[in-house]
């Protein structure tokens, strides 16, 4: 069920209202679990088994780690979790990729190999990372294992963040399940405001930008260079609007049910260095990779060369996490190299406005270059895009109005956030501008939402 479908709005309203009517925690928990499994099965009922498997595996590992005292035994249990989760992810997400890559190599030698088409279960990258982090935290002794299977099952399957995050740590979520608080009125208001913000970002910004991005990225050589340049900018806006919009709707939906999820974005395009960008973009994944990959690899504690190696490995694997395709691997590697090269680039806190602007622009340019790798699925398209930008040939000059307005909205939103009027974006109920902003947003959504169904970009990951 897509967050922007009418069905989801009805589903969320029903779940929220029924949850509010239930006075005892256990029935509310059962309702959340049932709603979450229904939400997942709405996509494909066959994959519910994977969710059950992942839940039972890490619940059992957690309980066993709690009772095991011997180091070897604890390591074995952690190994079971790692093999189980990564095996699941590897099989469903990467099997085809490696088989296809092997076939391509075999093909070079005139050999052929058969391949198996495996459907990617939606959300698998997100919930396996959640369950992995749970087992690792219990193993490290940083988390008391969950006693109730029901609670753990809700943690794994909680529908607002099930299919595309934010990646929630058990330490953040399980205590909330213990308390099972009802949402306060201000929480309900702020949840609705966050959902509205998410809808605006996804429907009015990302989906309109996609109308420009899709045709230009498919055939860049057909378009004049200003259109291609605009499409690259638009893609940066699209993926931000799409994913941060999704995250806003997820956080807002959870808040309506009384749960707080971690923030996933903090206006990353205003970052002044690539390292800062990664502290503000897809925050829950970045911190996951930092805590469960980069630091265990040694982080920056073992000398320069080791640090570079760790950075490259973390970012490349982070790229591969996005999808089983070489462009994601290269995109990750690109960011790894950039982080290595700019490691000494520490933006000064007292820098002049000009310097801050230049740093932000330079970081944005690096990110944009990365997005061209991320978006183009083959080398031919990538080369055509850059050829049209660097050595322009004749093409169609196409400047569609809706995407231009969407880009402008995004720029204005960032400018407001960077200014002293940031509270405007919070849509606080007592702010005089809020009723006007809400009314205009709802009218624009009702009349100017692009027609047709557009799934969230991150659902494919």
């Amino acid at each position, binding site marked *: 069920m897509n967050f922007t479908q009418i*069905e989801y709005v*009805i589903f969320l309203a029903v779940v929220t209202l029924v949850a509010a009517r239930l006075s005892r925690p256990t029935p509310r928990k059962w309702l959340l679990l049932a709603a979450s499994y229904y939400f997942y099965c709405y996509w494909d009922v066959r994959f519910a088994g994977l969710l059950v498997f992942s839940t039972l595996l890490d619940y059992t590992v957690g309980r066993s780690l709690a009772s095991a005292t011997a180091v070897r035994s604890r390591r074995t249990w952690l190994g079971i979790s790692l093999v189980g989760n990564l095996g699941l992810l590897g099989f469903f997400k990467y099997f085809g990729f490696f088989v296809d890559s092997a076939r391509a190599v075999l093909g070079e030698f005139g050999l052929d190999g058969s391949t198996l088409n495996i459907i990617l279960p939606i959300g698998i990258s997100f919930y396996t990372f959640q369950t992995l982090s749970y087992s690792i935290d219990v193993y490290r002794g940083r988390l008391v294992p969950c006693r109730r299977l029901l609670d753990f099952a809700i943690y794994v399957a909680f529908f607002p963040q099930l299919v595309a995050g934010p990646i929630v740590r058990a330490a953040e979520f399980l205590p909330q399940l213990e308390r099972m608080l009802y949402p306060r009125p201000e929480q309900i*208001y702020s949840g609705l405001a966050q959902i509205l913000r998410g809808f605006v970002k996804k429907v009015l910004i990302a989906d309109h930008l996609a109308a420009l991005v899709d045709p230009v990225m498919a055939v860049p050589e057909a378009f004049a260079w200003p259109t291609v340049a605009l499409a690259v900018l638009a893609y940066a806006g699209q993926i931000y609007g799409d994913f941060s919009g999704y995250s806003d709707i997820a956080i807002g939906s959870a808040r309506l049910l009384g749960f707080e999820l971690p923030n996933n974005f903090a206006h990353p395009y205003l970052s002044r260095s690539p390292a800062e960008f990664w502290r503000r973009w897809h925050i829950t994944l970045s911190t996951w990779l930092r805590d469960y990959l980069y630091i265990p690899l040694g982080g920056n504690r073992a000398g320069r060369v080791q640090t570079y190696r760790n950075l490259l490995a973390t970012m490349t694997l982070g790229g591969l996490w996005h999808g089983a395709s070489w462009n994601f691997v290269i995109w990750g590697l690109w960011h790894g190299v950039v982080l290595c090269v700019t490691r000494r680039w520490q933006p000064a806190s007292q820098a002049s406005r000009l310097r801050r602007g230049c740093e932000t622009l330079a970081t944005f340019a690096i990110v944009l270059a990365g997005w061209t790798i991320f978006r183009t699925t083959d080398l031919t398209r990538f080369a055509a895009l850059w050829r049209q930008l660097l050595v322009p040939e004749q*093409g169609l000059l196409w*400047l569609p109005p809706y995407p231009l307005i969407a880009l402008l909205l995004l720029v204005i939103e960032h400018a407001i956030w960077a200014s002293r009027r940031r509270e405007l974006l919070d849509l606080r109920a007592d702010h005089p501008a809020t*009723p*006007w902003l809400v009314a*205009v947003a709802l009218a624009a959504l*009702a009349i100017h939402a692009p*027609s047709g169904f557009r799934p969230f970009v991150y659902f494919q990951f």
Partner: protein
Amino acid sequence: MNPNRISPRRWAIAFLTTWTLVWLSGPLHVDSILVRVFDPDLGVNTLRPGDVVRWRSEGWAETRIGPHGLPGWQPRGPGWRSNGIGRRVVIWGDSQVEGVCVPDPIKIHSQAIRIAADHHSLTLDCLPMGRSGADARDWQDLTAAADALWQPDLHIWVITDLSDLTALSAIEQPAPYRRWTAGSPAWVKLAAAIRAEAAFAVAKRLFYDPDTGGRRRLDFSLGPRTSSVAVLTTAGEGFADVADADGAAIDRDDRFGSIVAQVVAELRSVAGELDGRLALVYAPSVPYLGAGVEYVDRDADAFERLRRPLAEAGIAVVDVGDDFNALWDQETTFPRGFHNGMPAAGHLNEAGNRLVARSIVSLVRERLER
């Protein structure tokens, strides 16, 4: 101050003011509400003559509805044909001929009249019998009434999607024309009168599914979700992927062979009723954006299989595909698409209309030279 205190009065004023502004500014950004009334001469409901139809969702244009609901057409004065050199054609088609996304002077029929006059000193009257969603079955149904009303020298069917023509083979289906042009109920006329386009647009968005074009149905069933497979081709898909509803492959050649036979038989019959005053203009969806700029019509093979028997039956067919491709090669312009739509897709734009109009004029001249 309590940060979550809500002032209902302030909210009410904001919402009322915003929607009033939306209502007032509707003409700038919302399509018109189409009102259809009964036309006794044609025997069907048509767009209401005298209305001005705004189109905003693709292109940006106003269309003045002429007599008999013909979009952008105004009748010539009396006696224009009396000198014997005036010619009249009726062009039939779907929304491409209706042309509401381009202003009246650049619609197909207007450009044809102008090209005939400017380049060939030919006085031409060109009547656009285009209806959104109409196909050959509808044109066939209305041909007799239109012929009796206007006595044209030629009827030209403008085919922009081959499935519009192959609809002739589905003889078991009832003619959908009268369904599409059902008269507008009173509430639609009222909504148009009070200019409630914005509210109408919202209602349409809520109650109609833009992906299917049909009424929105809420679907709460469990997955996996499978998309429906069309039995016949749909716009732009070509005949390459014909499958039955169960997904089993059908013998494409056999199936299409029988469709061709039925279509040709129907066209022979129409041409016979019109004493041969029937011609076809084929405006395929080329060039289009695929792996690159693609020049080959996805329905080229199917069209060729139709073209030969039609030529044998004496029905002239002009293919505008080469002109469309040349337009891109020479002017870096696509014949379809608008600044606010998808390039190389959707409706014909000014340049595409010009090329179709040129073909129409050449067909008329060819007819005159016979």
